[in-house]
């Protein structure tokens, strides 16, 4: 068996790493509840295993998602990950082809050139050494790109890059040294004993003409082995833990594991899968519009991983989900943030919300739940009432005199148990009414109705409902003058994805202007998010101002949204009139039908006329 003392740092590092990972992953597996363990066991025997392998190849090695967003960044990650993988795989193949019978411990392929400097007559030698040199060049390009990114991230279109901690620095330095040291070691070997190809051969010639290659050869191999060993030991304590854990995450996700309301092993896997690549930093409005650079997902996940959470930072997030939709690893950040908030609140709150009686239940076909916020934008609820009257709907305005809140703000405050009580109370009231449809004007309510209420009735946001009324000719709409730009509220976008309905509805009334890149999955938060507790009014206003600027850049005459919270936020800072889609619908009705609202308005000109007459 081939052996030399210098392989020890590498070998011991590898043994430590594998041992550490085995213990960690086994513990995570056994900490799961029974049904999750069952899912994992079943997953390995099903087709899900193959689809997971496919995703691992595409994402962990090729980094397809990063590549689609940012070519240069994608190439950098691919050359490091896929290049290194091929270097290991083909290196192993080479050593097996060369010595099929000999014992082949893992260090032999890694230090192949040391043990077999010049294989001489071996027929495939030229092919292998050329391939290995090409791959080494490929990885070295990645290292150079990574170095440039660290020094000057703007070259990659990234304004920000994550701050490093000690473990990261150690791992990063050793990782960057691994490949240049391999090049040096192989070059000196080639200079001394021959056998190098286009890369190691020519650098070997160059180095050999300056330095005594034979005496530099052995120290270079030691340095290479030491760099590898250091990296393996530092890996579990640095961000590079993401390399093995991301593979575990992809398998777990394909096997059907998801985040729950409490911390599970899946949460641990996700937290450790964050590579702190920094893609989330630039998408965060709190960073580019609010000037706050400590709360982004990469930092929050780091704080959770190292048990260093500051409540002020944890509660200073808009939970708009922009980072989540760009995360190349696909980490369910919003759920993890909610779990963290729950953990920060030690105490179960007072469940006294029914001390005074809640409004009586009415039997109806449709329940209208305006939502707390809609009561502060009365134009929206008035518009909805006008439409209900026009379409002659048997509707029960559930929170007309103010109801129990939907529960989502309470969940965002980290009081999951209290929210569950509110949900249960509201749910029983809704079911009692016998209605088949639940309409709400508030996207915040909509999200929690759809995701947590588990109702057997249709849940519609008013944009969907109004479109349905228009399509079934229950209401007739006429077009209004002007162009409108539509803003997707966060809570209706990304994971709920109500994009088509509001645009179709608005298209029936007004000319629609585009919002450029800031729409649908890439929509902006209005800054008034209920998820954020800590941000001051100034920060909120600057987020809103920035969003309005971007939305109205196309010169639209109306800024239309479908969320009372967004309306409230934009109204404060917008020069363009801000309106809810329901208000426009009720305006488009006014032209040809008599309404209570129009009757009131008709009085105004007559008063004016009288005044005019008296003058």
């Amino acid at each position, binding site marked *: 068996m081939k052996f030399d003392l210098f392989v020890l740092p590498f070998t011991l590092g590898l043994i430590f790493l594998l041992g550490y990972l085995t213990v960690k992953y086994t513990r995570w597996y056994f900490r799961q509840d029974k049904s999750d363990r069952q899912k994992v066991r079943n997953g390995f025997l099903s087709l899900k295993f193959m689809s997971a392998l496919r995703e691992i190849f595409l994402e962990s090695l090729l980094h397809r998602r990063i590549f689609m967003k940012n070519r240069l960044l994608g190439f950098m990650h691919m050359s490091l990950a896929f290049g290194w993988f091929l270097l290991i795989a083909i290196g192993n193949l080479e050593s097996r082809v060369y010595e099929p019978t000999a014992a082949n411990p893992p260090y032999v392929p890694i230090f192949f050139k040391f043990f077999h400097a010049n294989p001489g007559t071996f027929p495939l030698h030229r092919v292998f050494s050329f391939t290995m040199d090409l791959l080494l060049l490929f990885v070295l390009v990645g290292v150079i790109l990574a170095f440039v990114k660290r020094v000057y991230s703007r070259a990659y279109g990234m304004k920000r890059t994550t701050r490093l901690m000690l473990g990261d620095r150690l791992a990063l330095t050793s990782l960057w040294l691994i490949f240049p040291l391999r090049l040096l070691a192989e070059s000196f070997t080639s200079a001394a004993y021959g056998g190098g190809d286009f890369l190691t051969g020519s650098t070997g010639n160059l180095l050999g003409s300056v330095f005594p290659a034979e005496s530099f050869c052995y120290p270079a191999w030691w340095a290479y082995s030491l760099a590898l060993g250091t990296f393996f030991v530092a890996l579990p304590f640095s961000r590079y833990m993401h390399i093995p854990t991301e593979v575990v995450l992809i398998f777990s996700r394909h096997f059907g594991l998801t985040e729950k309301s409490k911390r599970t092993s899946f949460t641990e896997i996700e937290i450790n899968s964050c590579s702190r690549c920094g893609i989330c930093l630039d998408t965060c409005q709190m960073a580019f519009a609010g000037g706050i650079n400590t709360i982004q997902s990469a930092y929050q996940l780091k704080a959770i991983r190292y048990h260093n959470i500051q*409540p*002020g930072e944890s*509660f200073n997030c808009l939970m708009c989900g922009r980072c989540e939709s760009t995360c190349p690893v696909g980490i369910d950040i919003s759920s993890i943030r909610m779990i963290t908030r729950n953990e920060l*609140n*030690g*105490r179960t*709150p*007072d469940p*006294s*919300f*029914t*001390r*005074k009686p*809640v409004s009586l239940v009415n039997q109806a076909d449709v329940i209208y739940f305006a939502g*707390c*916020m809609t*009561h*502060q934008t009365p134009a929206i609820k008035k518009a909805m009432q006008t439409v209900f009257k026009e379409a002659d709907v048997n509707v029960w305005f559930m929170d007309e*005199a*103010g*109801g*129990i*809140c939907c529960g989502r*703000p*309470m969940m*965002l*405050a980290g*009081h999951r148990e*209290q929210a569950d009580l*509110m949900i249960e109370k509201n749910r029983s009231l809704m079911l009692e009414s016998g209605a088949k449809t639940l309409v709400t004007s508030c996207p915040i309510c909509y999200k929690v109705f759809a995701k947590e209420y588990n109702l057997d009735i249709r849940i519609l946001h008013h944009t969907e409902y109004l479109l349905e009324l228009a399509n079934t000719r229950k209401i007739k709409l006429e077009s209004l003058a002007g162009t409108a730009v539509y803003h997707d509220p966060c809570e209706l976008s990304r994971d709920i994805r109500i994009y088509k309905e509001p645009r179709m509805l608005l298209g029936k009334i007004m000319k629609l202007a585009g919002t450029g890149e800031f729409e649908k999955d890439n929509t902006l938060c209005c800054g*008034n998010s*209920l998820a954020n*507790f*800590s*941000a*001051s*009014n100034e920060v909120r206003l600057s987020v809103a101002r920035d969003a309005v600027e971007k939305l109205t850049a196309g010169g639209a005459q109306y800024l239309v949204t479908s969320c009372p*919270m967004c309306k*409230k936020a934009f109204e404060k800072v917008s020069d363009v009139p801000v309106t809810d889609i329901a208000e426009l619908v009720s305006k488009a009705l006014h032209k040809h039908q008599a309404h209570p609202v129009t009757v009131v308005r008709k009085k105004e000109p007559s008063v004016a006329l009288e005044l005019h007459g008296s003058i």
Partner: protein
Amino acid sequence: MIDFGYKIQTDRQIDYDSNDRQILEFVRRGEPSIDWCMSCGTCASACTAAVTTEYSLRRLIILARRGMNREIVESVYRCRFCGKCFNACPRSVNTRNIVYLMQLAATKISNHEI
């Protein structure tokens, strides 16, 4: 004892120096805008929780200033965090953070952390 027709009352002045302002100080450190509150009561009139429970943020802030911490703990958990008070506040006080920090202070006091 001779009855003079009047007697000396015990001292009824409030000793403001002995107020236990732990909650107020804790909240103030995290959310200085609590000092902008002028107790106008707009928050309480906009409140969702007040429809179904006895709850008033105006009262909570006054209680914090007076150091009546027991009363705060009794009602501070009734807030629904719906944010109407924040929208309504004429002084832009970050009301929800005040309630959140009051709850946090109450927890910390009961755990003897502050």
